[in-house]
């Protein structure tokens, strides 16, 4: 028999690991900490940020909350913003995405993000007025348009220099 010690590994935002483990950890009532990948929540969450998600534990997500859910089409876990609650269903959307993910039931939402770490510093993830405002901005896709315009301008300036 070869060496049998458990090896400590780092998930590094690996989607199958996040998708396979987050629901099980949250079901046990424990917070889940992992690395975010992708750009769909920029500029609020950027690739490589470390997020902590907590189970809802009886509470209901509110507009502005950044929630983890199993994407109905891909089956993978995603972290997007609740932009609207309508007829008891939750519309989620990435701040940097043009389209919403669809209207989900409460059961499809795994938990909400309560902590964000970037470059070793903790950034607040509020659930108050600021979050509600972000939900409105995200719903109108204003953030996407402003971000993309800023990038275009930055690109044009770079070309001129």
């Amino acid at each position, binding site marked *: *028999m*070869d*060496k*049998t*010690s*458990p*090896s*400590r*590994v*780092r*998930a*590094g935002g690996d989607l*199958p*690991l*996040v998708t*396979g*483990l*987050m629901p*099980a*950890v949250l079901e*046990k009532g*424990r*917070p*889940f*900490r*992992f*690395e975010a990948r992708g750009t769909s929540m920029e500029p609020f969450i950027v690739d490589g940020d*470390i997020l*902590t998600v907590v189970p809802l534990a009886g509470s209901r997500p509110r507009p502005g909350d950044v929630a983890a859910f199993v994407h109905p089409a891909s089956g993978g876990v995603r972290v997007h913003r609740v932009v609207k609650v309508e007829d008891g269903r939750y519309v989620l959307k990435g701040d940097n995405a043009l389209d919403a993910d669809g209207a989900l039931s409460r059961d499809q939402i795994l938990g909400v993000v309560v902590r964000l770490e970037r470059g070793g510093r903790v950034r607040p993830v509020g659930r108050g007025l600021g979050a509600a405002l972000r939900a409105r901005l995200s719903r109108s896709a204003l953030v996407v348009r402003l971000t993309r315009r800023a990038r275009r301008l930055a690109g044009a300036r770079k070309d001129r220099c």
Partner: protein
Amino acid sequence: MCQEIDLSKAYGPSEDVVVREIEGEIVIVPLASGIGDIEDELYTLNETGRDIWTRLDGAKPLAAVVRELAEAYDAPAGQVEGDVVGLLEELLVRRMIVEKG
């Protein structure tokens, strides 16, 4: 501190872990610290470790696990026992398994 492993006892996964098989690998997330942290506290087992882990059902005495593995690996029971006890000591220290009876 190292807890003594008793071959007459059964051992099984602790309530404080989440274990899943993902893409053919056994992955273990300890929850004893109160959080499932897959960036700082995620473990995998190699094939041998996995063979041992899957036999730790909390009912079978460890001596029976050693016998089964010695047969499966066609290896001397004494050598297998050393490997099994070595792994269990590590798993116990990390609070991934508990003595069941």
